[in-house]
């Protein structure tokens, strides 16, 4: 009997827009196999994801949108409708069976939620989830259905619990934010690279919720080239202040691993060191404030060979109170995948850093982030 569940099935790899699309769920298989080869993940831990029902999707999404996605997946949605539902862009193009495969992603997150909320286990992870850009009635930023938003609404409706949502993906979690912007029963925390250049362009410090929900949205926009030290400093202090003030029953965290300096889409310039620490910080908060109850899901991460498997492994390590292994990366794993990888696979758990850039304005950037931190801390004094 284990106390942590890992939601996985190879069917999750079918959430795939095209062979050349940067969102590549091969990273799930790479991570899962790495954990298996290490011997820290066994079939005993694994729960298969279920498919979310239409009623569950409708906790957040509009019925006409769900219908449109079904039709698009069968190729029967008229092209003239694509624009309206966000399917006309290169980010979220139509793909075969997109409804079924997206509903499985949501179902995976709900499987994790049920495992934790029913008391079967204390914590669970579903690295296939974390599609935080999906809107009520529109696909956006690689996301069709918003599993995080559905899960939050599901926890509220079915279990009547207070949720703290923590989103450490490099991109602002806009879909989740707008779903709960006026809702006082969800605390929505997102730390991300500023929208000055980066998609989606929102997530400013001044977006704090509206009406009754004012104060239950916290955005921590960090400057490009923030780097480890400033990131960890701002994250630790602000997330703790939010958690302490809100006193959640359960935490749902999105673990995008695109803040790394080798990520092709972003500029935060952190190393594995920060990515390794984040899940432990969140797990500690859950232990301190929610009797350990936490659901960790995936998110972005577009360097699928050199960053994602090692970083996501630490989500599993943190949930199981394990540390970074002393032994190198298992040879069996490297042998299995090296032929498919366009770059040499990593042999150890640390960054090589030979291609790490020195940031000339680091002092100013840190100072600016520090101002952001203090403004947020003011709200919780």
């Amino acid at each position, binding site marked *: 009997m284990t106390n942590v569940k890992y939601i996985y099935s190879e069917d999750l790899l079918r959430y795939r827009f095209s062979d050349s699309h940067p969102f590549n769920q091969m990273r799930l298989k790479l991570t899962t196999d790495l954990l298996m080869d290490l011997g820290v993940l066994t079939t005993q831990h694994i729960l298969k994801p279920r498919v979310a029902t239409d009623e569950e999707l409708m906790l957040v999404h509009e019925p006409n949108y769900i219908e449109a996605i079904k039709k698009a997946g069968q190729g029967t949605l008229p092209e003239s409708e694509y624009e309206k539902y966000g399917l006309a862009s290169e980010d979220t193009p139509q793909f075969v069976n997109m409804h079924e495969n997206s509903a499985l992603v949501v179902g995976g997150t709900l499987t994790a939620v049920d495992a934790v909320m029913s008391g079967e286990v204390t914590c669970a992870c579903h690295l296939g989830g974390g599609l935080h850009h999906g809107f009520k009635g529109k696909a956006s930023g690689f996301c069709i259905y918003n599993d995080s938003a559905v899960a939050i609404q599901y926890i509220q409706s079915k279990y009547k619990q207070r949720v703290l949502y923590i989103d450490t993906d490099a*991109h602002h979690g806009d879909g989740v934010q707008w779903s709960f912007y006026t809702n006082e029963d969800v605390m929505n925390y997102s730390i991300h690279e500023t929208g000055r250049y980066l998609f989606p362009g929102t997530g400013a410090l001044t977006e704090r919720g509206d009406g009754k929900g004012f104060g239950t949205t916290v955005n921590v926009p960090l400057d*490009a080239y923030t780097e480890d030290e400033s990131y960890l400093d701002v994250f630790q202090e602000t997330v703790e202040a939010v958690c302490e003030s809100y006193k959640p029953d359960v935490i749902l965290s999105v673990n995008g691993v695109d803040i790394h300096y080798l990520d092709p889409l972003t500029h935060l310039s952190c190393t594995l060191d920060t990515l390794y620490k984040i899940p432990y910080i969140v797990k500690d908060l859950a232990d301190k404030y929610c009797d350990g109850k936490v659901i960790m899901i995936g998110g972005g991460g577009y360097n699928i060979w050199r960053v994602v498997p090692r970083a996501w492994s630490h989500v599993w390590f943190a949930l199981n109170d394990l540390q970074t292994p002393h032994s190198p990366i298992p040879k069996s794993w490297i042998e299995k995948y090296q032929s498919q990888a366009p770059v040499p696979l990593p042999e150890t758990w640390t960054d090589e850093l030979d291609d790490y850039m020195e940031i000339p304005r680091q002092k100013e950037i840190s100072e600016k982030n520090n101002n952001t931190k203090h403004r947020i801390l003011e709200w919780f004094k």
Partner: protein
Amino acid sequence: MLVEKIMTSPCTTIRGDKSIEDALVLMTQKEIRHLPIVDEHDQLLGIISDRDIKMALPSILSDDDPNQSLSLSISKIMRRNVIRCHPLDFVEDIAIDFYEMSIGSIPVIRDNKVIGIVTQKDMLNTFLELTGVTMPGSIIEVHIDDKVGALHDITGIFKEQNIDILNVLAYTDQENINKRYLMLRIKSMNPEKIYQLLEEKEYHVIHPFGMKHD
């Protein structure tokens, strides 16, 4: 863009025979800072702002009784000769009124009746919406020579890549008036390819802090 697109309508008004206290209560309740004053036919008589009311009341440091001021008629302190506009006026034109007159709001009049109001906040929100902040997108900034056809050449690259441009802002480089900054908000989470193509054609793409992202 027309005023009727951005105005708040219907708008809260108050009759000229009401007291300053009535106006204060109404503004607090509706969370507004500008109140047009009308007669029984909804014709505009004047306007007051929260600041006018504060000026009319005794200082909290003085011993005067504020109730005396509160019971006075609102028409005692209202501003007459109000700058007004029509629902079919251009937003660009009333923007200049705001800019030059340092005013906080402009009532909208049709058939001699107050039918709406535009405040500084509406103007700012309109500007923000124009910049595209309400739609998810990545921002690309390019420093270009101010010459005919530059925009055409650049947007062609986006067309080839099938990337939707949500909006474009162009402004002159104050330090070098032969150059312009072009800000494109695009519907794409992954602008890497565009960066690459722009740089291949020797366009100067602005990176955060001048850093090159490899």
